């Protein structure tokens, strides 16, 4: 009997689908972060990351523009200058992407990637531009629900963590460099942390692949989202070969709630 019950719960959990409705992200929001390198507790600030939203009106619809920019601090500019822009035009209610643009400008390296999503046919028209007028056009077949990196970051914020059990995993498929990448976030519970915008109670998430056993501490990439209606990312920690990469919030304005 017990076995049947366990199987029933397992099957139910596999087949359960959640409907995500955006109650956390609004137009006019601006989040500023500092990306740092941490070596044995000594922090070195590298770049400023900004996440902004604004409304975009076309004759047929009103969309939400999700924009992320990364720019190195002036002290780094002579060594390596980063001016990256990532943007996604999404539906304001469910953050479904329609258009994605990635413009990477890192010193001598330049790359522009544009995805035009056709959600009804599950295809993406991709245009890649590189130096010396190199242009590559592709049509990619994607799975239902595949998003770009920017809309996925924002999409994490509209999930219902309040009713989530510790250890719950959510899978995402991200289209990056014309390839679908499977990512998994694991909800690890609540944690209170000090940030530049005050002491915040947060939802702690582990970011990784399905094979990583995060509950046994075998994952090194974490995100902290405020445990309120806005669910903004306030802190991120990522393992790099020597030391850690950190993303710390500097300021937040224009929040929905």
């Amino acid at each position, binding site marked *: 009997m017990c076995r049947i019950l366990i199987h029933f719960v397992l099957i139910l959990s596999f087949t359960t689908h*959640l409907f995500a409705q955006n109650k956390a992200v609004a137009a006019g929001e601006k989040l500023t972060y500092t990306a740092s390198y941490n070596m044995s507790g000594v922090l070195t600030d590298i770049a400023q990351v900004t996440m902004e939203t604004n409304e975009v009106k076309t004759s047929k619809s009103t969309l939400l523009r999700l924009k992320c920019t990364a720019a190195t601090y002036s002290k780094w500019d002579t060594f390596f200058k980063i001016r990256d822009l990532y943007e996604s035009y999404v539906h304001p209610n469910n953050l479904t992407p*329609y258009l994605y643009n990635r413009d990477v400008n890192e010193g001598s390296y330049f790359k522009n990637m544009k995805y035009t999503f056709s959600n009804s046919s599950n295809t993406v028209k991709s245009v890649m531009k590189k130096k010396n007028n190199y242009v590559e056009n592709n049509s990619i077949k994607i799975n239902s*629900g595949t998003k770009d990196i920017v809309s996925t970051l924002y999409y994490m914020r509209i999930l219902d963590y309040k009713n989530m059990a510790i250890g719950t995993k959510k899978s995402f498929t991200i289209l990056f460099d014309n390839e679908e990448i499977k990512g998994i976030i694991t909800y690890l519970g609540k944690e209170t942390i000090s940030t530049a915008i005050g002491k915040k109670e947060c939802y702690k998430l582990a970011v990784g692949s399905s094979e990583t056993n995060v509950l046994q501490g075998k994952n090194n990439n974490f995100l902290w989202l405020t445990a309120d209606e806005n669910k903004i990312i306030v802190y991120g920690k990522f393992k790099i070969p020597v030391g850690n990469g950190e993303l710390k919030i500097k300021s937040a304005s224009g929040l929905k709630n």
Partner: protein
Amino acid sequence: MKKIFTILTITTSILATIISVLPISNLAVFPAALAFIFGVTAFYISKKTGEVKKIIQFSFLLTACALSIVTYKAFFIKTEVVNTKILNEKEAQFEEDAIEELENLDIESSEFEDIEIENTNLDN
């Protein structure tokens, strides 16, 4: 032994000075701390044998200079982003182009329905 510690002191103090003038100046505290430890050891070993080489004292001075630069940069130099004019122009241009492209897109009403997220809650 004295020679080894003297070489280590000189090397780490020079390294601390070089790092202190780079953007990663905060990390200069590691070679500076090592330079100090090696320097003190070299100093005492030299004192026992009778002669303290000037180079050890010079290394101490170099380490102190490196730490001063690190402290100055940490407290008085503001970390800020400058020269974002091109990026701002690009942002505006991209938005204009995107609106044009979105106008041509056939955004179907069915796409405005809530989308599903697969719940891969496993046996945790």
